[in-house]
């Protein structure tokens, strides 16, 4: 293995808010510092508190200048969340590899296709010799606290780097609050012992049966109260100049039937036809509750 005091490498720790990404980056930096190496670490703060991506780039070696990793020069990705691992893959060098948690945090933007119910999120786990994906949260739970998943991943990473276990333990002690040191050390050791596991399987997602929706409006019954305009989850009704509602972007109608149910003048009809109309709720769905 490389002489630790001469080694240089570029890493990215990636995850989402609250997973301890910044802390993990600090632990790695502290380890390299203990070997007399130079180290630079970039953190992305800002929007992290509100569910955005969080990352820390760590560059270490005998001499390091900039804090950012250049495309094609990334050696390691340590990802606490699956989609965040994928985000950094385009920067990975041809020898770079990945330790990724199989944790999947599906953001609200992934759930915008309400008509077809498609999930815009990489649910499949990519099989690749340089991507090691495993259930870090499981290891963390085994260690005693699911929040130590990130440190378990550092344990796995540590087995690929030439730094001593003692140096890692010391860095963890320095950066983790005193009362959490024990459980983090356990998680680290479990991660370090982690060898390989059968490739993880994605969560099953049901395929929705295609269906057809018809919306009809009896214009002469509409008195322009605007209730449907406000209740429609897709916001596709609007009041026109004649103070009668009309539909814009009818293709966005999911057939939920709320407007039909709440129209006080029974002016709206929503008809859903589907191969499994009965299973979809059938007649029951359209009755006022």
């Amino acid at each position, binding site marked *: 293995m490389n002489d630790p005091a001469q080694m240089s490498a570029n890493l990215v720790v990636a995850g989402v808010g609250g997973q301890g990404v910044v802390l993990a980056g600090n632990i790695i930096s502290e380890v390299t*510092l203990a070997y007399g190496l130079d180290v630079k*670490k970039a953190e992305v703060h*800002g*929007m992290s508190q509100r569910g955005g991506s969080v990352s820390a780039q760590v560059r270490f070696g005998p001499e390091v200048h900039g804090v950012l990793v250049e495309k094609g020069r990334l050696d390691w990705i340590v990802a606490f969340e699956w989609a965040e691992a994928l985000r950094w893959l385009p920067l990975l*060098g*041809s020898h770079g590899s990945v330790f990724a948690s199989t944790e999947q945090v599906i953001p609200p933007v992934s759930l915008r296709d309400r008509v077809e119910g498609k999930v815009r999120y*990489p649910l499949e786990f990519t099989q690749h010799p340089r991507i090691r994906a495993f259930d870090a949260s499981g290891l963390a739970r085994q260690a005693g606290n699911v929040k130590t998943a990130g440190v378990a991943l550092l344990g796995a990473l540590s087995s690929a780097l030439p730094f001593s276990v003692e140096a890692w333990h010391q860095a963890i002690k320095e950066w983790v609050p005193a009362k959490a040191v024990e459980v983090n050390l356990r998680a680290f050791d479990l991660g370090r012992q982690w060898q390989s596991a059968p490739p993880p399987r994605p969560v099953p*997602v049901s395929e929705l049966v295609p269906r057809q929706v018809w919306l009809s409006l009896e214009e002469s019954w509409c008195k322009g109260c605007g209730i449907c305009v406000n209740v429609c989850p897709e916001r596709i009704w609007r009041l026109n100049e004649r103070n009668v509602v009309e539909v814009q972007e009818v293709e966005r109608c999911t057939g939920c039937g709320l407007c039909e149910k709440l129209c006080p003048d029974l002016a709206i009809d929503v008809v859903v036809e589907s191969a499994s109309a009965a299973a979809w709720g059938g007649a029951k769905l359209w009755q006022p*509750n």
Partner: protein
Amino acid sequence: MATATKTRALLLGNEAIALGALHAGIRVATGYPGTPSTETLEYLAKIAPPSVAVEWAINEKVALDEGVGAALVGARTLVTMKHVGLNVAMDAWMTSPLVGVNAGLVLLVADDPGMHSSQNEQDSRYLGRFAGVPIFEPTDSQECYSFVRAAFLASERWDSPVMVRTTTRISHSRSPVHTEEPDAPERRSFRRNPGKYVMLPANARSGRLRFLERLPQMAEWAENHPFNQEELRSTAVGVIAGGAAYQYVRDVMPEASVLKLGIAHPMPEAKIRAFAGKVDRLLVVEESEPYLEDQIRNLGIPVQGKAWFPRAGELSPQLVRQGLVRAGVLAPDGLEPSPEEWPETVARPPVLCAGCPHATPFLVLREIGAYVNGDIGCYTLGAAPPLLAMDTCLSMGSSVGLAVGMAKAGVRDQPIVAAIGDSTFLHGGIPGLIDAVWNDLDITVLILDNGTTAMTGGQPHPGTGHNLRAGDLPRLDIAQLCRTIGVRSVVVVDPYDVGATHRALLAATRYRGVSVAITNRPCVQAPVKLFGRSYAVNAERCDGCQLCMNLGCPALGWNLTHPDRRIARIDRDQCTGCTVCAQICPQSAIVPTAAD
């Protein structure tokens, strides 16, 4: 074990600035939060002894005024803000070099190229040069520490405030820092000198002459300052750079000669000429604007910069490499990323937190159809899907003025609303509200009072009853303040009560004249994380209508295994139990979980 003993601390650029200021012997530090400058004061509050006053100010203008006051009476003082903050403080900033400082006054301005968390990207170096003060530009945490210390000395030497300008990658990066013995500056006292300190025109005229006199002396000082360093290597190409750009150049083209400018104002003209004479090709690599490039060209020196490097956004080593390759001074290195076609991932834009008290008011405003002038804070996300309830957002406090402007312009078809956070209202919204009352206009100001400055991480403000370190302070009553200003319709409403919020906002927007509605639920993240009993979706009742999904609550998602529709599902770990989704569910399918 080969581990050496630890002699260096790993500090964030902002922390290094705080430590440098402390070691320079500051007695006062103030500022207004703003990414990426915020951690500086927060870290100082942790490490400084109680004898150093470390507290937030109500806005940047007041912070700088306080800094001038403290420096004049002899206390070395640090003032911190983000780039746009200096716009707010600009009036004081431009005259402060004429007044002078007595004890050192250093202003940290943190720019945010690429707008990681800002409403614009602007290059503060122009504002330092505009005011005619020295600008120090560190390239890593070590320099943050030593440059700030030097900045205090420069401030006293030139009897002028000094700007330390960082960018996100300097302020928010961690690297090792060696510290040195702290200074114990002699205690200076205030000596009355109205001829210098009172900016009557006659005094300001002599102040201006003093100022103009020192500029050439300052330029000479910058010529010989060790922070401007010539690193002569290959003479084929010479690069002039400072800040983060310097580091990228060193990484990407280690063989290039570099003139590193640690002082961005005044520019060392002779040094630049000499350097230009030693290299065949002269380039400037700088982030944001062609600040150095234009000045160098004005000296009559042939130079290129923005022809190869972007002006918008943040620089990166890739962009620097591409620029140098296109400029023809660097051969492509053939190093390619791994050739695989990787699967696509999904964007993860920020969202309001689960249970954020800002969600309901925007849901309601959208229903009312009001013209909503938003403002700067977490609630700016009310503009994003799925809430989509904001029409404008300009700068901190602007919402009220924009609403007043719309009313003056005669908009009548829909109610006009200004939606503004508590911290932002106190920072810059009050004068606008006074104007609205004064002109008897028909607007509604919605003050989203979550008891903190949430966007920047939860800093206190005058409405919280405490400051960064001091507790038990007078608590400003925002409703009372509005009444005192002359607003006759002031209502406080619980944003977790959808019906009440609807009624309150409907009444406020129908009111003739200025009305104020204030929401009163605390931020669920800061100062403490709030959790209540979580809610769950009854899969039998939920018909998948997606109405709850319009809240944008990140705890709400889909049950992906249901065979024929996407019914809702609540992530128990994220749900804070705000009850809002349960209130809007037409099927009453959202119910509290059993108490733990």
